[in-house]
């Protein structure tokens, strides 16, 4: 029986993703466990009392061999038990759930703005090629790619929140009394993220569109007397979308990593900030949980992006960069 090639593709990618996730969990666990030095001492500091070291060793079962501990941790994770935070003395999972939710809100919002914004700007830049808009766009793109997110974030707060009072400086979401004011509070971090992401897609769309607009296919349509807007939207855009979606997909996965810095800049209670904090606190179970979940998110987003790209553009069966 012939298996649908698309189905086979999906299954392959899915299994690859699982293998990746498994490998990632191994890497996360071993990077903490295998590094030189005694784990308990590393967590509590070299001058910790013997008592507290022993207590920690018992709690984390550090006397067991590493593979056993790894297996135990993994088994727990599969059942939803990520262990107990050393610092909060409460289960890790609810924290991760809450913080992840907030990260997804921020990331999702950023993407929601990013997709229409970058496609629109890219189209405009292509349509007004070499005009003042296009040149301005090129400069903005260059700056967007070059300025680090923490710089963008700090400056946006300085300018838009503190000077112009357009947005509240702190993202204290729970203070928001309506959807609108919550969105206002998230506006600055979303803008910061978009500043970096939009640059790539705009560039991508612009160059694809220019190529397409020069192609015979489009020239034929123009010769046939179709209005330019129709050509742009109905004929050119679908072909340009492939690489554009690829770029957007890459942005989505970049987002999982890039959001860490933005969360720290804006003191936003998301998973990225939790990861950084728990590393500083040496809260090993929390670090493992947060790193694993963030990586899983990254892998999932990558998977979805991969599949979308391949499904939309069947020509790109070989791995795209």
């Amino acid at each position, binding site marked *: 029986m012939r298996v649908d090639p698309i189905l086979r593709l999906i299954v392959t990618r899915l299994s690859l993703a699982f293998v990746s996730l498994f490998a990632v969990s191994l890497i996360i666990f071993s*990077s*903490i466990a295998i590094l030189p030095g005694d784990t308990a001492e590393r967590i509590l500091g070299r001058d910790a009392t013997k008592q507290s070291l022993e207590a920690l060793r018992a709690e984390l079962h550090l006397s067991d061999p590493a593979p056993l501990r790894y297996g135990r941790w993994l088994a727990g994770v599969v059942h939803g038990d990520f262990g107990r935070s050393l610092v909060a003395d409460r289960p890790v999972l609810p924290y991760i759930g809450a913080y992840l939710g907030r990260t997804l809100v921020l990331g999702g919002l950023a993407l929601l703005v990013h997709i229409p914004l970058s496609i629109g700007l890219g189209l405009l830049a292509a349509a007004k090629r070499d005009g003042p808009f296009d040149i301005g766009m090129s400069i903005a793109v260059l700056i967007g790619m070059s300025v680090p997110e*923490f710089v963008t974030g700090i400056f946006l707060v300085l300018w838009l929140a503190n000077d112009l009072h357009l947005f509240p400086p702190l993202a204290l979401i729970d203070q928001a009394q309506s959807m609108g004011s919550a969105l206002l509070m998230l506006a600055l971090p979303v803008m910061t993220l978009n500043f970096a992401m939009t640059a790539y897609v705009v560039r991508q769309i612009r*160059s694809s569109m220019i190529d397409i607009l020069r192609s015979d296919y489009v020239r034929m349509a123009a010769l046939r007397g179709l209005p330019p807007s129709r050509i742009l939207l109905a004929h050119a855009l679908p072909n340009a979308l492939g690489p554009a979606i690829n770029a957007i997909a890459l942005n989505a996965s970049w987002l999982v990593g890039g959001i860490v810095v933005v969360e720290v800049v804006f003191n936003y209670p998301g998973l990225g900030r939790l990861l950084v904090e728990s590393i500083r606190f040496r809260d090993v179970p929390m670090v493992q949980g947060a790193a694993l979940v963030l990586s899983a998110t990254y892998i999932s987003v990558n998977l979805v992006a991969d599949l979308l790209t391949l499904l939309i553009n069947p020509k790109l069966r070989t791995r*795209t960069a």
Partner: protein
Amino acid sequence: MTDAPISARGVARPEQRHSGAVRLFRRFPISAMVAGIVLLAYVTIAVFAPIISPYSPTDIFVGSPFEPPSSLYLLGTDNLGRDVLSRVIYGSRTILLMAGSAAGLSALIGGLLGMQLGYRGGLVDEIAMRILEIIMSIPSIIFALLIVGILGASAPLVTFTVGLLSVPNVTRVVRAATQSVVAEEFVTAARARGETSLSIVLREILPNVAGTLIVEFSIRTGYAILFIGGLGFLGFGAQPPTPDWGLMVNEGRGMIDASIWPVVSPAVCMAALVTAVNLFTDGIMRIFGPAERGRIS
């Protein structure tokens, strides 16, 4: 600005083995040349920092804290009365050294690995590619935070980690470029002549992927600057009182109401440096031809 050369098509064309200098410069846009000059300026400043810098970057109280820019202190002073300009100048050393080394490390290892895999192919290649894919499925910042956070932040460790994390990207690109070169006739001819693998790799393949490698090095430098700056900002980079730009932004942002210059100065310098690197990268990408690449990440 003309078309951005991000096309997913195309391959190192054979005639570019023999690019003449004239052809080179005709394709090299002015913006890239300006960028190159800027880069040269940065490197010069970094090299001659002790001579150029008006004060030592760690001398406290050359002026009172948070002084605005003046003829004595061109960029003002920070919370400890240190001259911001001097710290920025010395900071260029830190970042250029770290980012350059990281990029160099990834170019070296990635280049060698990529050429080997591209040349040999077969099962080793398949397995290696899977492994690389898996490594690339961890967001780099998480991996970097884990390593640096647990082992303790220091400049060499950060450099090494950032360099290592970019190896898969470079490997992939060099491997692809190698594969296309291997398909060319002159390689088959060399094999037929009985050349050893090593000599083929060095004499036939390397010159052809050199362009790609140089472009990759340039891209990786820009990326490393951003990554290292970000780690420095989070406190996982070089430690105080080292004048690391990312760290300076972090230290200064709490007191931004007292003075913006300790934050603005390193931030602008970092942004300008990456901009120049990106423009320069675009330029050399035109020379060496568009290679198969994805986003700069």
